[in-house]
């Protein structure tokens, strides 16, 4: 340890001022000292390098400038002239994560059996690791077929393209991601309504209004909140639907519809009914471009403001006023989310109703409305269908072999990734017997113990991660160390038509390797060396770019560190009129009827109700267990300093919530004799956890709000496996529980 004498402040003033990141002299008051052993040469130059952040991993990919001295990062700054900036607390703390002494930095194999309560590990070489993986996976494939090997990509999401390619090369239809419990339910609902993935769009300078349905941008992406607030200042009107009083509500909402979690479908039906009753819909658009309007009109007619108030707890007058505000201020846009819009038993219906609102108002693909149309040919993870070999998937009949096909046929229609929520059943039935599990966490599913058992019961599994996490890694056979954000390149960051390439800023810690490289090297060990570029990530990215047919190469991206703008693109409004939205270039939308489907043909063909019908949660105020567990359990929302179960270890972040917290309204807390900071049991028929009480106005009386991912208090012990039959999503937002003092 350096013995710092504060009498010895002497060095570095000039260098620090020159870089603008150190501490300079101020009227003779501040001095300097650098510990002797920190750098070989304390005067060695500081280089500024670009990167983008992976702390959230819901793809804001916020821009970073790293100040690097001797292959070490000494400061990070927000990147100017970049689409997503400035950094949030997590982005800055990426520096602390990089130098966390508890990082996993070597490959390890388990030395004791999985019956033992805790795993014991020994270090192995990468070559040994790959040889073992190849032997085990090929063995399972030989005995049980390729589909028995699960290729899973959790967090980070960035290596999805490589993982899906590997799964297909191996011949397995069992490629899964954490999107089977996050975001993708919303995307598929947008697909069903107007034929395109969407999570809504920020208002532009031409937007007169914005309907925010359960998105707390202030905490899921704080710089996005800044963008929205600027629109508010410009004059855009906001209606925010959220069970909580979030900073987004406080800052933006002209009207806040504070609904009971899980009742979104009734609110959406009531909203649509008000648009019709108040004569606010775009009749020309509805007549020409929608399918099923009369039936929808009939269905929602019973959702009067009074009935909606009874179901949702939203004051009738507010609903009337909110519909008027959005309906009268056109064009308007819509924002929904990967969480609030997804985690109820009714999501496959209600989220469609939400996407119908901009359609009914004629706000689709008009300036200031919700833009549509194909962008660059990249997917959510900056990969392409061709790179992922989706042509092989189709040609070789993977779709027919999928384990999830009968459980979730709608999901299976839209995604070439399996719905993973029935993993326990697939393992129990012997359908899945081994796994390559990147960034997996057993706490991400409802009723965690079942998933823990499923992972433990795999004949062989290898995890790839930043840390050794006993909660899941105690259940696997091998763990490989992944390089962090600053140590790797793939995948690209794509904003509109602009592509950014990330180059490694420093070399990886210990023996850690970039996750893309690990996946490609596993593929190489499995016998797909050529198709996996023998582990060369640059070569893989070059191929990925080639599959876009945009005629761009890595050299083009390297020559444009401020982003490569791909020329072209169709910015015409109302592209549905001219054939700009369908692959066959015909006018209309990319749905079976060619119209905006207010009644889904896809759902009807698969035996589901086509209208966006409201159904009560299985566990809710109307269910029998409500008398025993009278509080609505709302879990899974975002915090500005953690991402799911990640980042709990970083002191810069865990200072804000060092322990698990249950948030209650003052009314509910007082009724239970609970005081601020008390330890409380949170329990229901399925499980129990202990948490610290936070009494706050944030939550609606009758509801508790709990952040997920605490190993010592996993709230998914209480969440149930009542999956939405359309998407397969679990009801993280609408369970039941009771809270009592310990």
């Amino acid at each position: 340890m350096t013995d710092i004498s504060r009498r010895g402040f002497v060095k570095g003033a000039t260098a620090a001022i020159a870089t603008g990141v150190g501490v300079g002299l101020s009227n003779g008051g501040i001095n300097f000292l650098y510990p002797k052993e920190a750098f070989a040469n304390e005067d060695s130059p500081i280089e500024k390098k670009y990167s983008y952040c992976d702390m959230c991993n819901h793809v804001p990919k916020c821009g970073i400038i790293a100040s690097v001295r001797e292959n070490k990062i000494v400061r990070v700054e927000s990147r100017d002239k970049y689409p997503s900036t400035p950094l949030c607390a997590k982005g800055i703390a990426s520096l602390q994560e990089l130098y966390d002494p508890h990082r996993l930095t070597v490959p390890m194999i388990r030395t004791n059996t999985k019956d033992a309560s805790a795993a014991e590990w020994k270090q192995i070489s990468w070559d040994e690791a790959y040889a073992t993986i190849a032997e085990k996976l090929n063995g399972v494939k030989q005995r049980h077929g390729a589909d028995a090997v699960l290729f899973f990509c959790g967090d980070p999401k960035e290596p999805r393209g490589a993982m899906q390619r590997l799964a297909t090369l191996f011949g397995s239809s069992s490629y899964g991601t954490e999107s089977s419990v996050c975001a993708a339910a919303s995307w598929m609902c947008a697909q069903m309504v107007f034929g395109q993935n969407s999570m809504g769009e920020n208002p532009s300078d031409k937007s007169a209004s914005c309907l925010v349905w359960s998105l707390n941008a202030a905490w899921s992406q704080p710089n996005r909140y800044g963008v929205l607030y600027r629109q508010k200042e410009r004059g855009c009107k906001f209606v925010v639907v959220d069970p909580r009083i979030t900073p987004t509500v406080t800052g933006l909402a002209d009207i806040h519809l504070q609904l009971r979690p899980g009742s979104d479908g009734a609110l959406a039906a009531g909203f649509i009914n008000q648009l019709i009753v108040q004569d606010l819909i775009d009749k020309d658009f509805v007549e020409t471009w929608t399918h099923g309007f009369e039936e929808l009109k009939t269905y929602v007619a019973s959702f009067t403001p009074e009935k909606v108030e009874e179901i949702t707890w939203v004051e009738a007058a507010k609903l009337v006023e909110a519909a008027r505000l959005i309906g009268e201020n056109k064009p308007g846009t819509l924002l929904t989310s990967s969480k609030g819009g997804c985690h109820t038993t009714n999501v496959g219906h209600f989220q469609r109703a939400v996407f119908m609102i901009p359609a009914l108002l004629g706000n689709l693909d008009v300036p200031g409305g919700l833009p549509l149309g194909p962008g660059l040919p990249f997917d959510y993870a900056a990969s392409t269908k061709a790179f992922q070999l989706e042509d092989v998937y189709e040609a070789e009949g993977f779709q027919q072999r999928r384990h999830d096909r009968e459980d979730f046929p709608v999901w299976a229609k839209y995604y070439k990734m399996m719905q993973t929520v029935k993993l326990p059943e697939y393992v129990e039935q012997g359908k899945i017997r081994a796994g390559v599990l990147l960034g997996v966490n057993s706490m991400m599913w409802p009723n965690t113990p079942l998933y823990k058992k499923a992972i433990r019961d795999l004949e062989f599994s290898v995890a790839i991660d930043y840390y050794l996490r006993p909660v899941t890694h105690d259940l696997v056979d091998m763990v490989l160390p992944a390089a962090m954000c600053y140590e790797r390149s793939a995948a690209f960051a794509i904003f509109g038509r602009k592509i950014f390439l990330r180059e490694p800023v420093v070399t990886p810690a210990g023996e850690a390797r970039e996750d893309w490289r690990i996946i490609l090297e596993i593929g190489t060990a499995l016998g797909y060396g050529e198709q996996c570029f023998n582990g060369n990530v640059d070569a893989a990215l070059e191929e990925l770019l080639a599959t876009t047919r945009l005629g761009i190469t890595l050299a083009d991206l390297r020559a444009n560190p401020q982003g490569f703008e791909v020329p072209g693109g169709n910015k015409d409004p109302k592209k549905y009129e001219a054939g700009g939205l369908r692959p066959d270039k015909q006018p209309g939308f990319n749905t079976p009827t060619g119209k905006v489907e207010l009644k889904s043909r896809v759902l009807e063909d698969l035996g589901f109700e086509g209208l966006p019908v409201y159904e009560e949660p299985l566990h809710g105020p109307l269910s029998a267990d409500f008398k025993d567990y009278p509080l609505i359990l709302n879990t899974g929302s975002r915090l500005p300093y953690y991402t799911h179960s990640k980042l709990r270890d970083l002191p810069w972040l865990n200072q804000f919530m060092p322990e698990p917290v249950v948030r209650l309204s003052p009314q509910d807390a007082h009724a239970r004799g609970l005081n601020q900071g008390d330890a409380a049991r949170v329990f229901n028929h399925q499980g129990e956890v202990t948490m610290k009480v936070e009494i706050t106005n944030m939550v609606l009386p009758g509801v508790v709000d709990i952040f997920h991912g605490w190993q010592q208090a996993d709230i998914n012990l209480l969440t149930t496996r009542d999956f939405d039959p359309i998407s397969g999503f679990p009801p993280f937002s609408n369970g039941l529980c009771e809270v009592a003092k310990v």
Partner: protein
Amino acid sequence: MPRKAMLIDLRRCAGCYACVVACQMQNNTKPGVVWNKVEPCEWGEHPQAGRCYLPHACMQCDEPACVKACPTGASYQREDGITLVNYEKCICCEQCAVACPYGARHLNIAKDYWFESNTASPYESFGLQRSDVVEKCIFCADLVDAGGQPACVANCPGGARSFGDIDDAQSAIAQAAQGALRVDKTGFYYIPVAGLDEQMISDKVLKPKPEPVPAGKKAEANFTPVIAGAGVVAAAAVGGGVGFGLARAKKAGGQDAAAANSRAAGQDAAAPDSRAVAAGATATADSAAGATDSPAADKADRTNNNKGGE
């Protein structure tokens, strides 16, 4: 004369804590030391319940009590209003911390680095090293002098913070501060959200946190209160409308930045009572002088027994 000041538009505050972490990295603060705090504020009951976040740090007083209390001259004020600490002169006697009405002074006696490590990470090895000192927000004077913005301002995702010369009528902060509330006789300004009143701001920024008081009563601060006098520029500009340590900024009323401001200010305008804060007149010479002969032993004792900062 330029007067450096900070304005926080609470409507834009995302409650994201980026400013806290940005500050800790930039200023190389030791484990447990937090110069820049963000606290939730809540009011009302459902369905009229409200809440927001209130960031606060050293208020950069016009007449800093900490400077008067400092027996060695370590704490000093620059001509632009920023109060700094010369760590070489600091004897860690904590008289400044006692004197500060805002709890903005932090004792740094940390010996370990983050993660309870005895080795400095690269980011901890870079920048100013110090221990056994009392420290506080310095408006990132080093960055400001180099033409930059304080770290919390540059890293505010919501764009809630403005920084600059409040005395320059053309400056962005002076423009933005129209109608804002000024923490009396300091370089700190707030634009509150609707529903947040001055009492609540005072409760949060003053130390220690007052106990909850029955409805109808107002909390008493635990230091000698001083009536905001005629010398208070901001108060004079609005005809003496001084609330609990808060004064309307210059040109108040010229532009109504927040409807709630008017309401909140109006409630207290007639009561420029004894609860206005004028930091700088509260510390006593006795307490400052009396501490000068003991800090070394005191410091050694703490060093042996404590790991964290404050």
